[in-house]
């Protein structure tokens, strides 16, 4: 590699790292406890709720009626299902109210009584929000996505620069007998190069996750609206067929899968005409891949099984690959270890830049 090329890569590595390091350190530090958020929430929160009438099961229409009776004037947007307790979560919205303000009601499916919401511990919720968008909403998410792209540039340029540095050193050499900047350069190179694959996967899936809002909006506007275009008028709340029957019809179209949630006509994730009934599979891979069956909300007939396009599948798979929550506790422990190593790589990179600057000034 000639000097000019080397300088160019060096420039890319320096600036992509410098601009993003503080944000990446924040992401690594907040991400560390978030890897164990399920375990931490279990330990800190007391969830000793019991259903009121075990054995009894209300139909989804009955649950919906109960929920809407508590908030007259609102229309249903989503209905989701807890996995480990007989609770149905109804999300509704006031059509005349401000957009995006939803009412969320967990309802005991055995009695129709309100059930306590399953929320994370406030500290974990705070860390998650900081990690996701720094409390800045979509602009914050997209900004962190940009930091993720800079991370990818820093990793790629770091790999390119690794070669000239290691030309005369056997792999893994740490010159602990030399002065601190050389010693830390060796630590930086060693720890950086053995974590390349994981950092790139977690970084790039993080970037994809920051695009969740535009990806879902695009999917709704293109694929879902194309399906809806073939149909006439929207299905108003008063003229809809049974929700329970719609879910049963969808289940028959997608047998062997687990019901995840229902998107009502007019909501995100559905058209103005359909109940979109979402199912997921049962392997770690398919658990994250959802498939909706669109049921005509007026006639109750199946309109289509709308397989999600590649970009929605990419988004779905980016979530486990970013969170590391798909392989049990051993995988989480390795995830945390790699996160700690990445913190050392980031901090040593910053130290090396400062040391070099000090030397240049001296």
């Amino acid at each position: 590699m000639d000097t000019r090329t080397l300088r160019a890569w060096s420039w890319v590595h320096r600036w992509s790292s410098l601009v993003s390091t503080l944000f990446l350190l924040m992401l690594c530090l907040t991400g560390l406890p978030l890897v164990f958020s399920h375990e931490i929430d279990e330990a800190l929160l007391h969830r000793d709720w019991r259903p009121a009438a075990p054995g009894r099961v209300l139909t989804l229409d009955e649950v919906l009626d109960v929920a809407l009776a508590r908030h007259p004037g609102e229309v249903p947007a989503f209905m989701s299902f807890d996995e480990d307790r007989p609770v149905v979560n109804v999300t509704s919205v006031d059509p005349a109210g401000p957009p995006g303000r939803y009412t969320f009601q967990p309802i005991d499916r055995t009695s129709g009584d309100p059930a306590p919401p399953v929320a994370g511990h406030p500290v974990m919720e705070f860390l998650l929000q900081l990690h996701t968008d720094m409390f800045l909403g979509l602009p914050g998410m997209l900004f962190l996505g940009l930091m993720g792209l800079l991370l990818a540039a820093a990793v790629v340029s770091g790999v390119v620069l690794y070669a000239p540095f290691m030309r005369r050193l056997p792999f893994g050499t740490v010159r602990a007998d030399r002065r601190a900047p050389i010693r830390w350069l060796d630590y930086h190179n060693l720890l950086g190069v053995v974590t390349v694959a994981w950092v790139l996967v977690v970084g790039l899936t993080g970037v994809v996750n920051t695009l969740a809002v535009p990806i879902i909006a695009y999917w709704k506007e293109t694929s879902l609206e194309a399906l809806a275009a073939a149909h006439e008028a929207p299905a108003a709340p008063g003229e809809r067929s049974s929700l329970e029957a719609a879910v049963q019809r969808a289940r028959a179209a997608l047998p062997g899968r687990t019901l995840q949630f229902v998107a009502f006509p007019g909501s995100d994730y559905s058209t103005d005409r359909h109940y979109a009934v979402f199912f997921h599979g049962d392997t770690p891979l398919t658990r994250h891949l959802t498939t909706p069956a669109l049921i005509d909300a007026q006639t109750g007939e199946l309109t289509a099984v709308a397989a999600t396009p590649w970009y929605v599948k990419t988004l779905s798979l980016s979530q486990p690959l970013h969170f590391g929550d798909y392989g049990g506790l051993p995988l989480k422990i390795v995830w945390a270890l790699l996160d700690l190593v990445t913190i050392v790589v980031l901090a040593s990179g910053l130290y090396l830049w400062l040391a070099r600057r000090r030397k240049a000034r001296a």
Partner: protein
Amino acid sequence: MSRRDPGPGAIFAVPLVVGGLSLAGLVGALLGDGVMDGIGAALLASGPAVAAWALAARRRQGPAAGPAASRRNPPPASAGR
């Protein structure tokens, strides 16, 4: 390229193996539960494991590392590689 230059193949041999094992672990744990989770975590741990090995086996310790280290270690001529 000088005769001492080992070339990118030699420089990147270990990192490439570690990267391959890590990716196999990441995807493997996604494809199955139970045993696959364990294998996935073990493969993904190859990076930290190789780093730990390097820190134990390839960390050059000489007199400059401090007076305590120089007392414990053999003379500098044989300490480094």
